[in-house]
């Protein structure tokens, strides 16, 4: 069952990712990315990470993609000219190089299978939200607080950038 779900959602994620790259219109690319993000969130559920799955749907597919769609609506309406991708050969080159990287990296990806899993904090089935909270507010308290400063800087920067009047 798990295998079937993995391949189903992995296939959806991969097809949606290819669609993100292949679409000519930015709007269709963004909608494909929403599908891809939701499929990846299903993979998180398969990996026993319900909190990350929920955050993925709420923050990524909800907030960030809405931000993207707002900007697309503002800057790149359907009537605007499609920006043509020049240099078609680059895409074939990218596919070739990607396949080459896959062949090169396959032994590396396979080598983790034999590594023994260390006994650290045990991940309890679906109750890992409490563990995440505990680690976030004890071991990772400094990064968490720095994150809030980062968001504050971003808010100020965005307001300064976007509200500047043309001189």
């Amino acid at each position: 069952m798990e295998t079937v779900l993995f391949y189903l959602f992995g296939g959806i994620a991969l097809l949606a990712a290819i669609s993100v790259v292949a679409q000519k219109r930015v709007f269709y690319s963004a909608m494909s990315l929403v599908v891809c993000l939701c499929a990846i969130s299903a993979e998180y559920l398969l990996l026993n990470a319900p909190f990350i799955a929920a955050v993925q749907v709420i923050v990524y597919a909800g907030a960030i993609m809405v931000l993207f769609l707002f900007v697309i609506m503002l800057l790149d309406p359907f009537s605007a000219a499609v920006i043509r991708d020049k240099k078609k050969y680059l895409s074939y080159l990218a596919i070739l190089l990607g396949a080459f990287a896959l062949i090169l990296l396959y032994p590396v990806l396979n080598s983790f299978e034999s590594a023994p899993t260390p006994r650290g904090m045990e991940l309890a089935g679906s109750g890992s939200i409490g563990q995440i909270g505990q680690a976030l507010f004890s071991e990772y308290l400094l990064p968490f607080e720095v994150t809030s400063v980062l968001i504050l800087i971003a808010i100020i920067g965005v307001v300064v950038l976007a509200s500047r009047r043309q001189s």
Partner: protein
Amino acid sequence: MDLTHYLILSMLLFLTGAAGFIIKKNVISMFLCLELMLNAVNLAFVAFSKHLNQVNGQIIVFLVMVVAAVEAAVGLAIMIVLYRNRGTLSVDDADTMKW
């Protein structure tokens, strides 16, 4: 499912995003491909978190998501300024640092 399957899926997603980042000429499309690459890395983090039986990977993913949101907000603001100044979103037309 074992770790390798998730890592290969993650790498395929990352390569798709990287290829799109190279191919695309529209700034917004390049940003979407960037988000795709971040998500591929997040998937690898969560897969390792399951494999190593530790919660640390999921916390890193949480922080990566916050940074991605911040980066999207700032990047889109820069795009608005770029469009206001140049009237286009093509990266080929934005080839001078100062006009």
